[in-house]
């Protein structure tokens, strides 16, 4: 059903006298040009003539040409738009409307306010029509509306050009804070070697954790989310497109409470009955008292626009420290890309990277790997080409980390002879701002626990690898080696990560 957009009888908000005054000031005073260009988008001008003149001023300034009456007229003439812009006399007449450029900021703000009103009217009018359309998903309509308002906020919150001097003190304040926790500048991962390799998950980065099923992707995500939200006070948003929120919370409980696996809790396999349940509840109460920092959204089939809109809303309520998505292939891309899976995945990865930069938080996204890994002989180790329908994931991600458990494939030993039992291999195959290489950590997946080898929790069934602990950095190479499988070898004890 297509509902026509309702027509308003009101004249759209506008401030033509201020538009003329601002354009006139730009033609009269050189400093006005830069000042206004940094504040107003072309569409902020209501009158089509003014948009054309403003676009000409913008183009001349971009080409470092002097902006004056004659150059603007010449530019418009060259483009064949002088008549549509009101003609030579109209451009010349604009300078007559300027008394002083002293009020330029005020005039620009009035133009911007009227523009905001027009955008809001247009967006809500369209949304109204779409809301009547039974064929459209209301969540998508809402997400689109939120996106439009978010972009409007971005127009208003224009950051002034910044200088090195502006940042100098802030850089040293951060450095002073960083020396107290050397190497760890981002969101802690809870794993020493991973922290050393990445400095923690960095704001603005897109981290892709990719693996075949049963390798422990969700466990890794939850362990990182627990670490960030419960141990380091970071509000964390999890978008779980696969697993319902209640199941995730059940997994978190089994991670918090010794002696019970996730499967015990799922089946109610608890000796001691109701009193023991009360005891478990007491032991896991940290999830209740601090759990307000861990936000879970288990809406299935979310689109990238919906995730961005939800994050923008959450971020406005509680500044987020980490965003996690489980997993990319279950998301929908933007509407334009639908139908072509590769383009859709590309639009998702690009959207996640933009989200990371918009909110300046790390975005950790899980990704499913293709079956090609299983078909491959030998150790069935994943590689970059295995990123299913990978599209632009490889380009958009700042870090790509593969997970691999030899134990799952009945491979009992790593190439150096150490046992794979109870361990998880994290292969950092791409690291834009750091080194690539492999890390082995201990894991107890039935409780969703990950730990540094040699640092096993008291309750963990100690794997042979942990028992004969050695520094477990088994291969390190520089970022330049990106994509090259690193050979298995034990690093010396003073290895860089």
């Amino acid at each position, binding site marked *: 059903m297509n509902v026509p957009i309702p027509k308003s009888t009101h004249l759209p908000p506008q401030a033509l006298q201020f538009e003329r005054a601002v354009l006139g000031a730009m*033609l*009269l*005073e*050189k400093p006005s040009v830069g000042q206004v260009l940094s504040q107003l988008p072309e569409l902020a001008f209501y009158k089509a003539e003014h948009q054309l003149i403003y676009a000409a001023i913008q183009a001349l300034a971009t*080409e*470092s*040409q*002097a902006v*004056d*009456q*004659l*150059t603007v*007229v*010449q530019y418009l003439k060259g483009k064949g738009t002088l008549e549509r812009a009101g003609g030579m006399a109209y451009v*010349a007449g604009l*300078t007559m409307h300027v008394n002083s450029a002293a009020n330029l900021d005020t005039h620009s703000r009035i133009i911007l306010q009227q523009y905001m009103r027009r955008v809001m009217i247009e967006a809500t009018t369209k949304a109204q029509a779409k809301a009547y359309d039974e064929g459209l998903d209301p969540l998508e309509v809402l997400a689109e509306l939120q996106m439009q308002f978010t972009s409007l906020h971005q127009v208003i919150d224009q950051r002034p050009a910044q200088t090195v001097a502006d940042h100098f003190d802030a850089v040293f304040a951060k450095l002073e804070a960083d020396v107290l926790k050397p190497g760890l500048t981002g969101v802690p991962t809870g794993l020493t070697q991973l922290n050393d390799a990445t400095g923690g998950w960095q704001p603005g980065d897109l981290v892709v954790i990719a693996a075949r099923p049963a390798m422990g992707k969700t466990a890794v995500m939850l362990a990182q989310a627990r670490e960030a939200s419960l141990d380091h006070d970071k509000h964390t948003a999890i978008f779980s497109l696969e697993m319902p929120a209640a199941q995730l919370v059940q997994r978190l409980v089994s991670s918090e409470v010794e002696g019970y696996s996730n499967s015990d809790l799922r089946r109610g396999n608890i000796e001691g009955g109701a009193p023991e349940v009360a005891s478990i509840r007491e032991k896991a109460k940290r999830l209740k008292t601090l759990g307000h920092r861990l936000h879970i959204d288990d809406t299935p089939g979310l689109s990238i626009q919906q995730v961005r809109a939800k994050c923008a809303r959450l971020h406005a309520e509680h500044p987020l420290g980490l965003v996690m998505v489980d997993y990319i292939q279950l998301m929908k891309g933007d509407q334009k890309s639908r139908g072509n899976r590769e383009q859709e995945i590309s639009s998702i990865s690009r959207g996640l990277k933009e989200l990371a930069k918009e909110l300046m938080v790390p975005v950790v996204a899980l990704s499913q790997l293709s079956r090609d890994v299983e078909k491959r002989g030998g150790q069935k180790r994943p590689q970059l080409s295995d990123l299913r329908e990978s599209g632009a994931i490889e380009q958009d991600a700042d870090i790509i980390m593969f997970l691999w458990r030899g134990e799952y494939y009945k491979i009992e030993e790593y190439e150096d002879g150490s046992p794979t039992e109870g361990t998880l291999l994290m292969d950092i195959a791409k690291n834009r701002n750091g080194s690539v290489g492999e890390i082995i950590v201990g894991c107890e997946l039935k409780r969703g626990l990950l730990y540094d080898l040699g640092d096993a929790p008291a309750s963990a069934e100690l794997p042979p690898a942990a028992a004969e602990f050695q520094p477990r950095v088994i291969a390190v190479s520089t970022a330049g080696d990106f994509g090259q499988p690193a050979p298995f070898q034990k690093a010396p004890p003073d290895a860089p990560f």
Partner: protein
Amino acid sequence: MEAYSRQMAVAVRRAIREADSARFAHLLAYYRQRGGPGLALIEAEQLLRQQRQHLNHSPQAA
């Protein structure tokens, strides 16, 4: 330092040269307020027009 590209300088010079006296007066007042490379061009044209006018009114011309 503001500047015109070569093509723009040619175009602006032509527009100034072709301006009738009323438009020329408007442009002169405008560039005196605006400054920039246009002012140099219009002042050069003004000088040229003054010289031409002087020549037209000189005894030899008469």
